[in-house]
């Protein structure tokens, strides 16, 4: 069992959990993920690693409460334990001295972009981080991010903080600030990553996205995480999770993610309780 050291809501629907997993914490690199189970015999779900402390042997996970498993995770308290935390899975994000890198994050990605930005900065890049949300109260972790980038850009749909609008405005904002990108790295919900891939396409540089499909084993065995990338079949767990978003078949990817939406409602009817947001 993997003991939970900390567990608290960050912003509505998003939770932060610190869990003991010393072998994983000793090995993990930016961009990798773990698979967790909330309960014994429970569903296995992939979660990005938002941070880690190799010395303390802990991992920080940030996740959104959407279904049965993430609800069970959200209900966990300090002192509880998870039956499975396995990893680090997937390939680390490629960190090189690219020059100027623009990191874009939303939702749980605001958490997982932090170690990426930190490593890019340490590799000598000029790092711009743009975080995006519906409203100011959904933008968390700004202070931590500020310490690991040259410029922090905030965008809210309602204009309650930073620039008003959505990710589509970012190229214009970057132009105003005189930032050119040699590489984009995008972490967040599928919609954000797809939109970013379209919006940044004209820049002619890689738009690295961290894909978040359905997974079971996470080691290449089941193939449920497959996608069409540059016309070929890839497995997100062993070939990714990072891909150049310009070459991802997003329409197919989104449809595959929605495969079990109907079934995921069954436990709600079955147990008769759900939460209200």
């Amino acid at each position: 069992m993997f003991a939970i050291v900390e567990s608290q809501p960050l912003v509505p629907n998003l939770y932060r959990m610190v869990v003991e997993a010393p072998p994983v914490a000793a090995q993990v690199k930016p961009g990798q993920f773990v698979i967790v189970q909330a309960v014994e015999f429970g569903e296995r779900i992939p979660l990005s690693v938002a941070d880690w402390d190799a010395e303390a042997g802990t991992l920080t996970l940030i996740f959104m409460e959407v279904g049965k498993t993430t609800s069970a995770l959200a209900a966990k308290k300090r002192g509880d334990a998870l039956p499975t935390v396995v990893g680090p899975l997937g390939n680390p994000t490629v960190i090189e001295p690219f020059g100027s890198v623009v990191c874009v994050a939303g939702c749980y990605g605001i958490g997982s972009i932090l170690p990426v930005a930190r490593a890019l900065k340490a590799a000598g890049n000029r790092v711009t981080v743009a975080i995006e949300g519906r409203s100011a109260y959904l933008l968390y972790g700004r202070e931590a991010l500020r310490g690991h980038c040259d410029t922090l850009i905030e965008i809210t749909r309602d204009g309650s903080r930073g620039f008003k609008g959505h990710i589509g405005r970012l190229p214009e904002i970057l132009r105003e600030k005189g930032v050119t990108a040699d590489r984009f790295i995008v972490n967040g919900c599928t919609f954000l990553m797809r939109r970013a891939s379209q919006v940044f396409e004209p820049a002619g540089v890689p738009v690295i996205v961290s894909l978040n499909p359905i997974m079971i084993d996470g080691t290449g065995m089941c193939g449920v995480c497959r996608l069409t990338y540059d016309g070929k079949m890839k497995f997100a767990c062993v070939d990714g999770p990072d891909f150049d978003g310009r070459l991802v078949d997003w329409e197919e990817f989104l449809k595959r993610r929605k495969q079990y939406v109907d079934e995921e409602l069954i436990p709600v009817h079955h147990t008769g309780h759900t939460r209200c947001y």
Partner: protein
Amino acid sequence: MSEPTTPPKKMNLNREEMPKQPAVVRRGNFMEVALGYPLETARREASRCIQCKKPLCVAGCPVEIDIPGFIRHIASGDLPQAARVLKSKNCLPAICGRVCPQEEQCEARCVLEKKGAAVAIGRLERFIADWEAAQGTMEMPLIPKSTGKRVAVIGSGPAGITVAGDLIKLGHAVTIYEALHEPGGVLTYGIPEFRLPKAIVKREVDYVRALGVDLVLNFVVGLTRTLDQILDEYDAAFVGTGAGLPWFMDIPGENLNGVYSANEYLTRMNLMRGFLYPRSDTPIKKQTRVAVVGGGNVAMDCARTALRLGAAEVRIVYRRSRQELPARLEEIENAEEEGVIFEYLTLPIRYNGDDDGWILNMEALRMELGEPDASGRRRPVKVEGSEFLLPVDAAVCAIGNSPNPLIPRTSAGFEIGKGGNIVADPATGKTAKDRVWAGGDIVTGAATVILAMGAGRVAARAMHEYLTGEKV
């Protein structure tokens, strides 16, 4: 309590049938299909063995069980001794008795097979294993004094469990590392409950743990630690990581929703207990028309699983004919009895879907058999203009796997074969990498449980010799 027995004078060709759940009943549940011999039936069957002086059956067994030996004790009613003889060579008899292809191995060599009535060795093996388990106490072998040597076993499937069991009985300290949250490898995630109850897998794994083997779950060697980091802490390692990435056919539409790899389909059902959903947490779809592509045991497992999930029509789509089906005859017959429809000489060429990305039908071609190919089987040839549409709401691709690349990719020093497999000496299991042995599907590509166990046995011997300088 045992009675003396004399070999029968005249060959008894009346092979005892094993009771099964009736097809109409079993296709509606996930309980085991075959029910096992009652004691009297087992003794009658055992008494058919003519106790050959030079038993050919033993030569047909990859782990060299003293077959006439344990059968003689069943015939005489000394079941504890039968169990002892059996388990001295096979630490997983309840599993082998169920899933070994005996008809190609021990039973194929049985002298009575020439008359078409081989002794039912597999059923007797299962009988003894189940009898012992029912007694509630497992007899534990004596573990010799510790050699002080430490061995890491990567993967807790049939190869890994065999190596671990053999080496701990020789006095070495053994740790098994398993990537998933439950041990057993393919026995747990792959083979369905109705063919191999998970309680039996658990029992066999518990036995190896009771011998003192340390089992670490949720640990992916290659990622959580590299093999080289593991080797810093151990004297030797065995890699039994099994089959890895599922193959697809590279035809259009394979990423449609409703198209599964056999690994995914079976893992959802077996490891994740999808058939209990929503009591379990991993969802499955209720699908009504299912096509399974392929003709091996895995394809049969998928088709029969689909029936049990309530599908109205389940088809096996296979490009050759019944004769060439690689699955065990017993499984083919079970599938036929349960109502699986076999579309022979049929090759899928495309899946078509709806606007939401769900599969609507399989486009396929009819084939005919031409000249024999390199494998000796007649090559299927396309019949021009024979395209047709098969409406389905699920298709399962059960055409095999390539070996798991995680270890070869993260550790230098292996020789890697054409298919991505780790090359190992068949006589010893030794790989090109110092202090590392390997066996099972990671070496051979997808094969059987017993061949993986045989490879484990061979490697354990060679590892013991390396560790102590002594032969087993």
